[in-house]
């Protein structure tokens, strides 16, 4: 018996009968249009087949090789955040009508997805305090790249200016995208307290730039002076793009839209999408209404049917590749629909009060940790600016070495900044969320104390 057939209805008998129906002799005849010379003589060199029992055993064993399973205390952030998601989220996204359907090209039988995405767009607008949101992008980094291209379309200057406190992988991605379309990418520096330096920004924009970009909270965890930087950007005819890689912060922080941002984009996985080693994640992008026709990605709009019933459709698709082809605002087709749904469900369960409480908890724990580590012998806090749930601590020894040492003791204390910033050997980026109980934080302080 052929294992494969458990996923394939047709039995050998069925296949032979169907072959006869279409007047063919052998299965091989189906491929007559493929030149003999190109047809494989040997079976593929891949493992398998495995029964489901073997498959589950194999994957359980592989999962155990991810040693974070041993229940280590973890303080990792840096673009991906550990959050608790209520069980309803996963129970609802595993409704097959949600996860096994395609892009809702046929609205009459896709209202579930369409209405949910319309609600997602609204939630993103409410969080960012902007007018429009698209239906999702691949992730925060590619969302930034697309956002810069949009800024360049709307405000062509051939140049963008980024804070040096952006997530380094976002910057790398932006450079990759922009290098092909001759848009210059320049950076400006930060102040001693760890925040972007408005003066440096003004100087760097100089002759002009299509956009000024900051991250808030920034990559080192510091909160930025969004209003000030908005003024700097706008005074110089540049748009302000605010990147948010930890959107839980929007539970207490002002919506950047209200603070002057023209575009707010970033990473939304914190809203219930599992870490899953970094993907699938959820890129989001919101902007002022003026950007409507420059927006990349899908948009869901409200309308009504022939009987006057309210309904939802994919709209403004003349922006998109399947209509506009080379003139499209982006090449994105498949996006992160299910992750957007996940975020929408997560946000509706938490709701207005819950999201705020969650944000407050994250902030309070991080502040508690920052103070605790500040008083650890040999440790110091290099940046004084206010934070959300991440901060940098300078250790008495190289951070990478500290990570190895504490790993043995069941703690992953954070991300060594040397991973991205060769100059910062002793700096560790520490993230604290609602899943780090106080006891873990206290243990972290004790263990770091042992390093000096």
């Amino acid at each position: 018996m052929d294992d494969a057939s458990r996923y394939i209805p047709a039995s050998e008998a069925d296949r032979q009968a169907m072959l006869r129906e279409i007047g063919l002799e052998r299965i091989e005849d189906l491929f007559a249009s493929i030149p003999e010379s190109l047809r494989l003589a040997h079976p593929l060199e891949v493992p398998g087949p495995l029964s489901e029992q073997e498959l589950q055993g194999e994957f359980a064993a592989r999962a155990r090789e991810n040693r974070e399973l041993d229940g280590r205390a973890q303080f990792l952030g840096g673009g991906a955040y550990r959050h608790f998601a209520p069980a309803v989220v996963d129970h609802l996204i595993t409704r097959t009508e949600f996860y096994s359907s395609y892009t809702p090209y046929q609205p009459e039988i896709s209202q579930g997805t369409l209405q949910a995405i319309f609600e997602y767009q609204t939630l993103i607008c409410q969080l960012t305090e902007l007018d429009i949101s698209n239906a999702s992008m691949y992730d925060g980094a590619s969302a930034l790249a697309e956002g810069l291209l949009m800024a360049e379309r709307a405000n062509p200057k051939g140049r963008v200016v980024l804070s040096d406190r952006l997530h380094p992988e976002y910057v790398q991605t932006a450079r990759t995208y922009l290098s092909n379309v001759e848009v210059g990418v320049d950076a400006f520096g930060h102040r001693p307290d760890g925040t972007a330096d408005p003066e440096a920004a003004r100087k760097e924009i100089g002759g002009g730039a299509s956009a000024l970009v900051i991250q808030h909270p920034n990559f080192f965890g510091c909160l930025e002076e969004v209003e000030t930087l908005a003024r700097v950007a706008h005074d110089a005819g540049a748009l302000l793009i605010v990147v948010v890689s930890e959107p839980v912060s929007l539970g207490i922080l002002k919506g950047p839209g209200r603070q002057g941002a023209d575009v707010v984009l970033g990473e939304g996985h914190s809203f219930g999408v599992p870490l899953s080693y970094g993907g699938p994640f959820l890129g989001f992008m919101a902007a002022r209404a003026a950007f409507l026709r420059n927006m990349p990605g899908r948009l869901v709009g409200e309308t009504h049917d022939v009987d006057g019933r309210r309904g939802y459709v994919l709209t403004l698709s003349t922006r998109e590749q399947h209509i506009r082809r080379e003139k499209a605002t982006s090449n994105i087709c498949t996006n992160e629909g299910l992750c957007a749904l996940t975020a929408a469900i997560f946000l509706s369960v938490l709701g207005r009060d819950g999201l705020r409480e969650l944000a407050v908890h994250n902030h309070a724990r991080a502040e508690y940790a920052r103070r605790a580590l500040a008083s650890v012998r040999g440790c110091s806090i290099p940046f004084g600016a206010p934070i959300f749930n991440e901060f940098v601590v300078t250790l008495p020894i190289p951070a990478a070495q500290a990570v190895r040492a504490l790993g043995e003791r069941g703690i992953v204390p954070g991300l060594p900044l040397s991973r991205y910033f060769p100059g910062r050997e002793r700096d560790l980026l520490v993230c604290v969320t609602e899943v780090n109980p106080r006891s873990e934080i206290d243990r972290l302080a004790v263990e770091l104390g042992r390093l000096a």
Partner: protein
Amino acid sequence: MEPRNLRDPEKLLFELSRPGRRGFAPPPADIPDPGRFDLDRRYTRDDIEGFPQLSEPEVVRHYTRLSRLNYAIDLGLYPLGSCTMKYNPKVHETLARLPGFAGAHPQLPEEFAQGSLRLMHDLERALVAICGMDRFTLQPAAGAQGEQTGIMMARAYHRERGDPRQVVLIPDSAHGTNPASAVLSGYRVEQIASDARGCVDLEALRRRMSEDVAVLMLTNPNTLGVFESEIEAIARVVHAKGGLLYMDGANLNAFVGVARPGDMGVDVHHLNLHKTFSTPHGGGGPGAGPVGVKKHLEPYLPVPTVEKEGERYRLRHDRPQSIGRVRSFFGNFGMHLRAFAYILALGPAGLRRMAETAVLNANYLRRKLEPIYHLPYDAPSLHEVVFSDRHLESAGVHTLDIAKRLMDYGFHPMTIYFPLIVKGAMMIEPTESESREELDAFIAAMRRIDEEARRDPDMVRTAPHTTPVRRLDEVGAARHPVLRWTAPAGGRRA
């Protein structure tokens, strides 16, 4: 005939919201006197205007009711051509949720993430074997990003040879993402016409091919479901002028285990794990678009790559010639995991059987519908077949009407009005997941619709009649875009 169920259509979250309701209890507060940490008010907001307030049961009902307005692969045939809507094995959802995988943080030290790294490595090896390429990057999040990544690698390749080029050639039958990706990668796009069989016109190509052409983007089998049987000659023409051959592998399901892009002269190609390798489409994503390359393009792969050293796996970031990154971290790992599980479950024989049965099903449909529906190109079909509505012109019934009427028969329509080279195209891809009985039911529906179109065209033109909503005003939606809910003027404020 019976009246529609009388329950009101599902309201929006924001309309269901009521002040003071909640579906979430705050996490344990074990930090002493958290109040002392309060942020300066200049940073903070008092409220998220209009944000919903609902209890858990209300949220569950809202989304459960919404879900029932969708069609899904688990409800029946989903013959969207070019989308390869196949069965998504349930066990994959279980495996992807193993805490060791779902909980793995992308910034974990490599020694704590060996399971994820090994899986990515093993998937790359499997794809190399299936496609006959030398290496793969798993980073692209979808097919379109795969195209862009591949084209950018080609660009880097030419640039490094001091031979920058301006043009990417794309057949007129190609998917819209191809030109869009080429432009996004800094190229000018030129279309090349298809010949009578719907394949690349080799002569036209020969005439056009020159030193300014960087890449030919070829979809194989093409969007008509036809194998580009002259692909070897095509590759020679392109290579002779120093160009590279990119293959859009969205249709790979047609020949897995039967033939390999790497043996066809392809230099670089993407494939869609969410098509050929069964990862769920999620109502629009996520997907994954790995890109395979031959040796000469390997230096340009995005960073990082996964390398095996002895028994350990590590991430290699130091790749000086790399194009860089196209996103953060390592790609849609959750999709890599599902695709790898699918490959292991099927094995070598199973993967071939998958392609064979997909092609068999498509040809069975073709044979049964040919006598009724107009077949614009009669070249042999592989995994899908494209019909047109020409035979119903007289009746004034169009492809859109046929698609909508299919809904009344309980089927999701096929892909319509694509490829663009077929007027009123109906592009049907059944995949291997369909039983003969399901195909026969679809054929019967198509037959009846053809009769209805002649007998009662108005009924067909006003279809669907049995769906939660009927035809929607898409023009109005675009003309007066309403893209978010806003609180009714003077309406209840939460």
